[in-house]
């Protein structure tokens, strides 16, 4: 069973600092064009299929904007 990863991006907490984008080894993430409620360009999923759940983005996020669910595909 391929393990499936679901990244949850809390866009309204994101301040567009770009650390997650910088540390993602597979360029899964990017910063959106539009602004969020805080007036920042929030993180967005660019290529979710490339994500294998290494968690570096979540480790480097200073605003608890990224959480990750990982496990056996149901």
């Amino acid at each position, binding site marked *: 069973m391929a393990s499936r990863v679901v990244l949850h991006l809390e866009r309204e907490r994101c301040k567009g600092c770009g650390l997650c984008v910088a540390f993602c080894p597979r360029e899964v993430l990017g910063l959106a064009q539009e602004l969020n409620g805080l007036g920042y360009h929030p993180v967005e999923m660019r290529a979710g299929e490339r994500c294998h759940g290494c968690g570096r983005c979540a480790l480097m996020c200073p605003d608890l904007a990224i959480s990750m*669910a990982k496990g056996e595909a149901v």
Partner: protein
Amino acid sequence: MSSTFAPPEALTKVPFHYCPGCTHGIIHRLVGEAIDRLSIRERTIGVASVGCSVLAYNYFNVDMQQAAHGRAPAVATGIKRVLPDRVVFTYQGDGDLASIGLAELVHAAARGERITVIFVNNANYGMTGGQMAPTTLLGQITTTTPSGRAVKEAGYPLRVVEMLATLEGPVYLARVSVHDPANVIRARRAIIKAFEVQLQDLGFALVEVLSICPTNWGKKPVEALSWLKEHMLPVFPLGEFRAVS
């Protein structure tokens, strides 16, 4: 689906006020994860200091006290002496801990107070807009060292962990950093240990966490992390300077 990464229960849901990319947020999360890991949330009391993290009492989902600038180790001492079976930690910046509060820190450490000190070193006074701190590097420009910190006027940076390592009271002293994922994991491990020695009633513990200040350093967050790696690590070497075998 087993969730492998979620906000710790020991942090509230209140969004951080910190600047974009400020790694206070990461360090808050690590402290929250440590408290969750050790399942001590309901008997932990935190002491917030004065600086960018002065609002930490909004973020740590534990009983909190707000201390006067520099006095968190004394406030924590008062709490711990009265409630020896509770877990007490302070969360302090470099101006609070290494400048105005140095005497309180050194004596709490020398007494071996059973408290855990989380010391965030971002080489300047963040909240007040980027003045020199005791940990500001030689040559580093701040609003109070406009042409760079010069030895003749402002002396040398303080290496707090090494200083405390000359005392018997501390049982765990480490300096860690959060400038990349591997270091974030190591920082979490050190913070957990700093709480564990308190639970084992062994003595004083402090973890110095090198952190960035994009706004006052005038750098993008990613650049600030490399500046930390390139300039701060040589002056503030990482490692465990005192640990229980």
